[in-house]
């Protein structure tokens, strides 16, 4: 090999190697995950009992806002970008990402974006307090002055995502090994290709939305100000035109991860590969035409409500195809239940549950009851946490031996799975009941009749939070002192180019392209 990694801090500051950048993305996102998780713990601690105990309502609003923003933009999205950096070149037989220097830039601006965002917590007026959806005029006319930091933070984070996506698409379209046709690519590469296109299409729309806010706040325009001829409802349309594809940006790479893990531990090839590709593409395309189902209560005409309701329900079809394929892959397979497989199966079950509550919310007349209640909170945590976060955890357990040449502690992994699984469901399942009983989201206090389930939910949240520390411990102890392995396949049922490489994966791989049959 020509050269190994540079020595010292320079290895990371000037990193152009996809594995190093992937590692930095993963650690950064885990740090953000712990920060956002800490905010969640503050929220659940306050909601343990009715009345105000620990924090002030103003600070509670800052916590819900920062929790949402950090989890979506800081934890889940960079985690999947990190995974893409590590795996896509190894899966398609490329020596590195197509644009390594831009890769470095897209990672290194992220810490600055989040420093800008998190620094608002220590400023006069406090952090943004208008919810992660930052609806105008709450986020313009009535926003704290720190909103400008939030806006520039979003700009930086968005630029990072767009650069990362350009890099991923360029890599997949140009650097595949000879013989690696698109329809031979592992599904993780496919799902990321689709996700990257979604990101390039909608992150600029988010940038546009915050730019309009910036101009309304500082330069006297009236995009969202009715007094000057604008319309606050326009904000919701622009935001959700970004926001709905965004939720698929978060979940589609998870589909790719699950489609890699389930065949490995079922010891069967993935059922319906091409239908998986088409279903994912269909979901991505549909995500652009359903945005207003987030705003059924805004005062839409009947025709609009009907259209957005039916279009949304239609998404259940390709999603159903995917769930069907995963189950068919497991059907009559020689299944073993290692930790990644446990997380993957939990993903399929809990994601489907979250999908069903999504269908309930998609029904316009029913949504008027559920809107902005804890039912919505339960729904999106089932798809975001049990969907995206569980799949990330599964991915780390699955590929970690490949990355560092050491096996994780299986008993500890399974323990972490069960604590996570139980903790997660104890946290979020009761929130369905709370929402149906009428508890609204984003309030620091609640009526007495909601006390019991809130207590249960808070206890579950602390259990789930603790399980993440166990995960951190397991990963660190694996890297430092896990049992060594040099089996290229690691898992006997694993298929794909990354498993033909030596374990641990060397600093440079596929400097000469592999032969793909």
């Amino acid at each position: 090999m020509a050269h190994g990694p540079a020595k010292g801090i320079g290895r990371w500051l000037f990193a152009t190697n996809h594995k190093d950048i992937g590692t930095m993305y993963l650690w950064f996102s885990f740090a953000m995950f712990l920060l956002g998780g800490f905010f969640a713990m503050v929220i659940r601690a306050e909601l343990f009992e009715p009345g105000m105990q620990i924090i002030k309502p103003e600070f509670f609003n800052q916590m819900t806002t920062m929790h949402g923003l950090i989890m979506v933009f800081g934890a889940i999205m960079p985690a999947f970008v990190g995974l893409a950096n590590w795996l896509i070149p190894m899966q398609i037989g490329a020596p590195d990402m197509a644009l390594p220097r831009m890769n470095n830039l897209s990672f290194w601006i992220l810490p600055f974006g989040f420093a800008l965002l998190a620094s608002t917590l220590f400023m006069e007026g406090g952090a943004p307090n208008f919810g992660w959806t930052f609806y105008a005029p709450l986020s313009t006319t009535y926003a704290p002055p720190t909103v400008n930091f939030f806006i520039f933070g979003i700009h930086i984070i968005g630029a990072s995502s767009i650069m990362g996506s350009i890099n991923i698409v360029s890599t997949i379209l140009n650097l595949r090994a000879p013989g690696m046709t698109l329809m031979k690519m592992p599904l993780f590469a496919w799902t990321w290709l689709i996700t990257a296109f979604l990101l390039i299409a909608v992150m600029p729309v988010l940038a546009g939305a915050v730019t309009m806010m910036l101009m309304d706040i500082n330069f006297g325009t009236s995009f969202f100000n009715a007094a000057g001829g604008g319309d606050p409802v326009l904000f919701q349309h622009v935001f959700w035109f970004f926001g709905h594809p965004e939720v698929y940006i978060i979940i589609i790479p998870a589909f790719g991860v699950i489609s890699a893990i389930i065949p490995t531990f079922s010891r069967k090839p993935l059922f319906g590969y091409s239908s998986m590709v088409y279903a994912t593409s269909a979901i991505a395309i549909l995500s652009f035409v359903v945005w207003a189902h987030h705003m059924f209560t805004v005062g839409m005409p009947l025709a609009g409500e009907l259209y957005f309701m039916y279009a949304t329900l239609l998404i259940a079809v390709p999603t159903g195809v995917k769930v069907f394929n995963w189950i068919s892959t497991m059907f009559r397979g020689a299944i073993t239940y290692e930790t990644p497989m446990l997380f993957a199966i939990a993903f399929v079950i809990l994601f489907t549950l979250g999908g069903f509550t999504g269908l309930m919310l998609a029904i316009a007349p029913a949504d008027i009851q559920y809107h902005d209640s804890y039912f919505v909170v339960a729904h999106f945590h089932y798809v975001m946490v049990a969907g995206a976060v569980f799949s990330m955890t599964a991915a780390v357990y699955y590929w970690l031996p490949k990355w560092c040449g050491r096996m994780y502690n299986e008993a500890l992994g399974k323990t972490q799975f069960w604590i996570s699984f139980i903790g997660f469901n104890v946290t979020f399942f009761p929130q369905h009941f709370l929402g149906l009983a009428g508890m609204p989201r984003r309030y620091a206090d609640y009526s007495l009749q909601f006390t019991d389930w809130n207590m249960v939910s808070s206890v579950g949240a602390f259990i789930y939070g603790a399980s993440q520390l166990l995960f951190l411990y397991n990963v660190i102890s694996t890297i430092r002192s896990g049992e060594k392995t040099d089996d290229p396949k690691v898992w006997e049922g694993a298929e794909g180019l990354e498993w033909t490489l030596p374990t641990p994966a060397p600093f440079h791989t596929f400097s000469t392209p592999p032969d793909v049959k």
Partner: protein
Amino acid sequence: MATNPVRKTAVWLLFGGIGMFCFALFVLPPLYDVFCEITGLGGKTSGPYTQEQGAQQNGAQQNGTEQRPVDLERVVKVQFVATNNGAMPWEFKPLVQEVKVHPGQAQKVAFYARNATRRDMVAQAIPSVTPISAAKFLHKTECFCFNNQPLKAGESADFPLVFFIDAELPRTVNTITLSYTLFDITKQGTEQKAEQSTGKNTEQDAPPLAAVL
């Protein structure tokens, strides 16, 4: 530059991203306005009613000089609501709560406003119609909402409104609620009176893009 295939892909994608940014900033808002204008979504009434508009809407049987047909068979109830936005301190209310009109018949009403504060202020009223399907059938020939309304400290005024209901109003609509929300634009109003003066309804003299930007 375009010889390197990676660079070619990346440049294409970059332009795609920039294009989407421009789309969000320069196309979506005017598009939304036009969409609302055509469909009447959001319950906004259109600008000052002109004869040409009437001629377009009512087709060939009516020329510009002729009086509108008044449908004496039908009676439509029009209710008025006045709301202050945010911390707007003015007293603001309709002088009559509701009127009954025949479609086509012009009706004059007034809203009372009083600036009880000790400073001169400027207000802008923003209309909204319920049901939203009736919005494009409510025509105003004169409205205080077409201009911003300055009132000196302690001053009061009756704001006039002249409107008629289009004879084409769907049969299912018997009651229309016309609501005005009064915004305090003292800060903006003094700075840019000319641009702000007609609020939403500038499409006669300016295209929607310019109206928003």
